[in-house]
């Protein structure tokens, strides 16, 4: 049994078989062959070895010719490894005795050797592990051949373990069979985190290297609450987690009962509880849990992984789907909030050393007006279908807000001229850059609502990249500096009598609910999975209680004290809450 600590990005517990994806996206299935197919499997293995040998010989000759014999020598060594009698005996034994498929036997044996090499003290010798991986890949390529199993062809539930998952990889996964994710790198903002949250399955990221220690098909536990990954768990641990999973399921069922009850405090103050979504299909998850609308609709998925810019119709279809599913309830659409580096159809910006401080979000939109206008047209067209709001992300200056509003007005004019129907929709901005908070008194006079994006506000206030595991610890939503900026924003919005929304991962965590309500927030946008829990908490407290919590928390100096205090208060109100 081995425990890995990573960053918890999506809660829940998943227990199941590992599916390992390496850099090339290979999937190494644990498969067994029937007794009478063993001989045939051995032939298959030997054929793959021969093909790999031919390939290595060709490589050696080419490289020797082009660069000289000493460079070809490495392939000489590869050849020797491929034909290593011990390795051959071990693999053939796994196939013959344990009935492993060739792929699984190859992967198991070679990874074991690679691990031995990696543990060697001599740097030079330890690097030989790469040679082993090279041979493994080569053999697998021949074994899997054209039958190479894509991620799209999963047939049984698995936990996906990968170094990192690209948007296109996650997009191609057959979601019905994915129970959870673990990636070696990445942070709370990584694509994997967002997708896992959307799918409501547990995920842990930033564990550091471990893939070489695990083979496909092995039992793994993902603890998305604690950010733990357990490889080869023992029976006691498995039993304990199975029990916890069952209890969590029971709690979910009891929370379902809250579906048709309003998010109203014990003393009768209504809080609007909205859903945060990434994909149109998530609307269903929100309505199933009884939400008051969509507080943040991230539109980025339309751009991610797409080879060309999405057309107006593509935008419109997605938006129409969401708005139609929320009759009479607000849907807040955030315009493109991505960096140019994430968009395949835009040139990579030259000086993007610091993407979070670079050309992204509203800045990118204002530089690519045709693209921005396409999105705004689609949003406006969808406005006739329901209660659509539009919101600009990452606004840092008044000028940017005015420019964005001007583009919107311009697009409205165009639509009007073409006789296309739309409604005058509320226009808001995200407050997630400290400069916007400093100027909030001016901003609130020019928008219909503001929405505090806590993820980015924390990052920009504390100057910490939460996807960097070395500094992620500094990332703390209840840091007093962050709370002070939030308080300034809430007070300015309340004075102007415009709604203030709060979104980001902070709002989905019940430990912050009383604090936020106590600070004067009456509109929260949370992930669909968190709706019942947050609703239950709101219904259990009074405004006076929340205000006291906020007052005490805002008087503290350390994030850690605040967090401990908040956790304690939640436990006091709802003893069975985990948070």
């Amino acid at each position, binding site marked *: 049994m081995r425990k890995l600590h990573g960053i918890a990005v999506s809660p829940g517990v998943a227990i199941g078989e590992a599916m390992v994806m390496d850099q090339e996206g290979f999937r190494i299935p644990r498969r067994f062959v029937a007794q009478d197919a063993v001989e045939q499997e051995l032939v298959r293995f030997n054929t793959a070895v021969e093909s790999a*040998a031919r390939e290595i*010989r060709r490589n*050696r000759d080419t490289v*020797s010719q082009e660069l000289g*014999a*000493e460079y*070809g*020598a*490495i392939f*000489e*060594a590869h*050849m*020797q*490894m491929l*034909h*290593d*009698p*011990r*390795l*051959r005996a071990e693999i053939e034994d796994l196939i013959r005795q344990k009935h492993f498929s060739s792929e699984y036997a190859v992967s198991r044996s070679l990874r074991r*050797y690679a691990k*031995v*090499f990696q543990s*060697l*003290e*001599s740097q*030079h*010798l330890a690097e*030989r592990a790469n*040679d*082993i991986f090279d041979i493994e890949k080569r053999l697998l390529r021949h074994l899997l051949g054209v039958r190479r199993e894509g991620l799209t062809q999963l047939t049984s539930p698995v936990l996906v373990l990968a170094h990192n998952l690209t948007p296109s990889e996650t997009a191609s996964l057959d979601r019905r069979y994915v129970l959870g994710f673990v990636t070696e790198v990445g942070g709370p903002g990584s694509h994997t985190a967002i997708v896992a949250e959307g799918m409501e399955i547990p995920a842990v990221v930033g564990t550091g290297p471990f893939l070489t220690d695990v083979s496909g098909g092995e039992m793994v536990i993902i603890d998305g609450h604690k950010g733990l990954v357990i490889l080869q768990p023992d029976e006691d641990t498995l039993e304990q987690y199975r029990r916890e999973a069952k209890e969590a399921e029971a709690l979910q069922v009891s929370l379902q009962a809250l579906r048709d009850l309003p998010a109203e405090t014990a003393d009768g103050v209504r809080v609007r509880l909205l859903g945060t979504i990434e994909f149109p299909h998530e609307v269903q998850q929100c309505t199933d849990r009884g939400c008051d609308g969509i507080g943040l609709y991230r539109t980025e998925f339309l751009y991610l992984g797409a080879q060309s810019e999405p057309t107006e119709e593509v935008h419109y279809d997605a938006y129409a789907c969401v708005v139609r599913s929320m009759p009479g309830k607000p849907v807040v659409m955030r315009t493109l909030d991505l960096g140019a580096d994430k968009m395949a159809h835009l040139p990579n910006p030259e000086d993007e050393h610091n993407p979070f401080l670079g050309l992204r979000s509203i800045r990118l939109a204002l530089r690519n007006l045709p693209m921005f206008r396409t999105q705004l047209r689609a949003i406006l067209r969808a406005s006739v279908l329901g209660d659509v709001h539009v919101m600009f992300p990452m606004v840092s200056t008044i000028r940017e807000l005015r420019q964005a509003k001007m583009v919107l007005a311009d697009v409205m004019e165009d639509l009007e001229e073409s006789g296309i129907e739309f409604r005058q929709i509320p226009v808001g901005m995200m407050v997630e850059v400290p400069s916007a908070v400093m100027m909030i008194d001016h901003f609130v006079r020019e928008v219909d609502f503001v929405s505090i994006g806590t993820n980015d506000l924390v990052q920009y206030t504390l100057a910490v990249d939460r996807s960097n595991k070395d500094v992620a610890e500094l990332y703390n939503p209840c840091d007093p500096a962050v709370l002070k900026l939030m308080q300034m924003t809430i007070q300015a919005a309340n004075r102007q009598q415009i709604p203030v929304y709060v979104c980001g991962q902070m709002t989905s965590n019940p430990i912050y609910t009383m604090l936020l309500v106590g600070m004067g927030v009456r509109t929260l946008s949370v992930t669909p999975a968190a709706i019942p829990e947050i609703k239950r908490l709101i219904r259990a407290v009074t405004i006076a209680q929340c205000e006291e919590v906020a007052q005490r928390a805002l008087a503290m100096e350390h994030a850690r004290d605040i967090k401990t205090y908040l956790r304690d208060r939640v436990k006091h109100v709802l003893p069975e809450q985990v948070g």
Partner: protein
Amino acid sequence: MGNKSVATVVVNNPQGLHARPADLFVKCAMQYEAKIEIIKDSERFDGKSILDILALAAVQGTELAIEADGPDAEAALKALTSLFERGFAEEEDLSDREGSSGS
């Protein structure tokens, strides 16, 4: 059986017993019928397995015992120790023999 000989060698290559010397060692060992083992700190490694030899992690200066057991043990030992003595000097004549290392 009964024809067992042992010799002691020291690794002289600056990089230790890395991929190329290990490859040369195995190729040489393969030409003899005798069972070849390398002993390092009383741990035994198969002299005909490149992976085993790499795993023994012999850096420069490591002392190793080579044990050969079989009818041609003497000859095998002589050839193998001479490889160490010459510091696995580049010998191009081995490059055409890959066919013989197949199984």
